[in-house]
């Protein structure tokens, strides 16, 4: 297996090649890189790959040290639809 085919985001199976190419082509920050490739948008919410996605983005953009590069959104753990819609649930 080459580095190009190496997986970075395990949940969405986004490869190193895709991330590096996308970063170079669009000169994008971490958020844009995530939205373009889906890296960090899978089941785990990006806990595992966020620093690597961030590192790729930092090769082409400057880090904003005062703002988390990949914003956190609720829910931070997967929630069953049944629990979301449940009536009278505590």
């Amino acid at each position, binding site marked *: *297996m*080459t*580095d190009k*085919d*190496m*997986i*970075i985001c*395990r949940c969405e199976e986004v490869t*190193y090649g895709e991330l*590096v190419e996308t970063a170079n082509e669009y000169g994008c920050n971490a958020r844009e890189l995530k939205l373009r490739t889906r890296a960090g948008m899978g089941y785990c*919410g990006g*806990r*595992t*790959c966020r*620093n*690597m996605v961030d*590192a*790729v983005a930092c*090769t082409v953009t400057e*880090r*904003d*040290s*005062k*703002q*988390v*590069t990949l*914003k*956190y*959104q*609720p*829910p*931070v*753990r*997967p*929630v069953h639809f049944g*629990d979301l819609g449940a009536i009278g*649930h*505590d």
Partner: protein
Amino acid sequence: MADLIIIGSGPAGLSAGITAAECGLSVLILDEYLKPGGRLLGQLYEEPGGKWWNGIEETRKLEKRAAALDLDIRLGTAVSNIEKEDGLWHVYTDRETFTAPSLLLATGAAESPVAIPGWTLPGVMSVGAAQVMTNVHRVKPGSRGVIIGVSVLSSAIAMELNIAGIDVAAIALPKMNEVNKDGANPAGVMDSLLHVSHMAPSKFVQFGSKLMQNDFMKKLGITFYPKGGVKMWGIPVMLRKAVIEICGTEQVEGVILATVTTNGQVVPGSEQRIDADFVCIAGGLYPLAELIGLTGCPFHHIDELGGYVPLHNEQMETPVDGLYVAGNITGIEGAKVAMSQGVAAALSIARNFGRQGLDDILREAVEYVGETRRKAHIQFHPEVAEGRRKMQQYWEEYEAAQERIAPEEPVVEKEVLQGV
């Protein structure tokens, strides 16, 4: 309704819960894991003087104190969201929603990986995973392993695997690429290890202490670093070899090692395959800020503390009213520092709750955090004190800016929370 909800029952959360209960607050502790103790559970190392630091025992001591105070600890309870409404925190979990005026986030750290081709194969796990499997659940992660990433954490865990009778074939660097950079640079890794040489076995210290002198010597040291590695506890620590691939079809069967230059570039033709049935990935720890990231609390990226850290002061207060932090969420340090931070946070919370006469012990508790840091046996980042100084400076700048906006009224919370 509890006075205080603590998220995380690791060393920081448990210590805070105990202290807060001792101050007369009603406390609820939530944790998604099946046991209390957090990352403290897996820790096992020999301290100078020959005494063992046993995380399971330390957790048991905290649990006992918590039980004596009748602390309400809900395990297996995963928090998915937190919101603040009318001065109350609402904590949403997979079981029920809890409410309290004060919230302490002691969510600890997560592991950061290095990426190696083949790292999704079963048998590849984070180094912390191997530690928990071995010391907490007492199941061998495999019979022969390779650890990728050379750091204080990975060498400590290599030793723990060794004590449990698990063969560690090598600790080596990850292959250099855009995401592995620092951890893949032999000279850089050597430098960071030398800062903690007091905890490395004598052979490494003998080799390393000569190199501390100057950059030229360091360069020389990494140039002549033995290709077969320097052995600690019988495990070769390889600073001039990198794992370039993890092999296997259905699960790990081995790794391919290659010699690297002093800058981490692979020397063509130097590849060799070694057999292994498990691989540990050691890319370091970063503060787990996902929950506090939902509150609008400001952040600063501080390398020495392990990444993005929520703004807080030495009393463990954040700029968000009723929101506190303690432990690795504030920066990567050992369990003893986390415990002392938990105590300081709880005293702050009790004081802000109107408990009288706590000013002196809070001041002492804050001093004790610093003292614990100075005496720490393991430092994850050699410049952690500098990182703490930066955070304090950011806090002071923030406070000064707030005073300029509204000298009388604290507008912090409104302003911050609108951003959610």
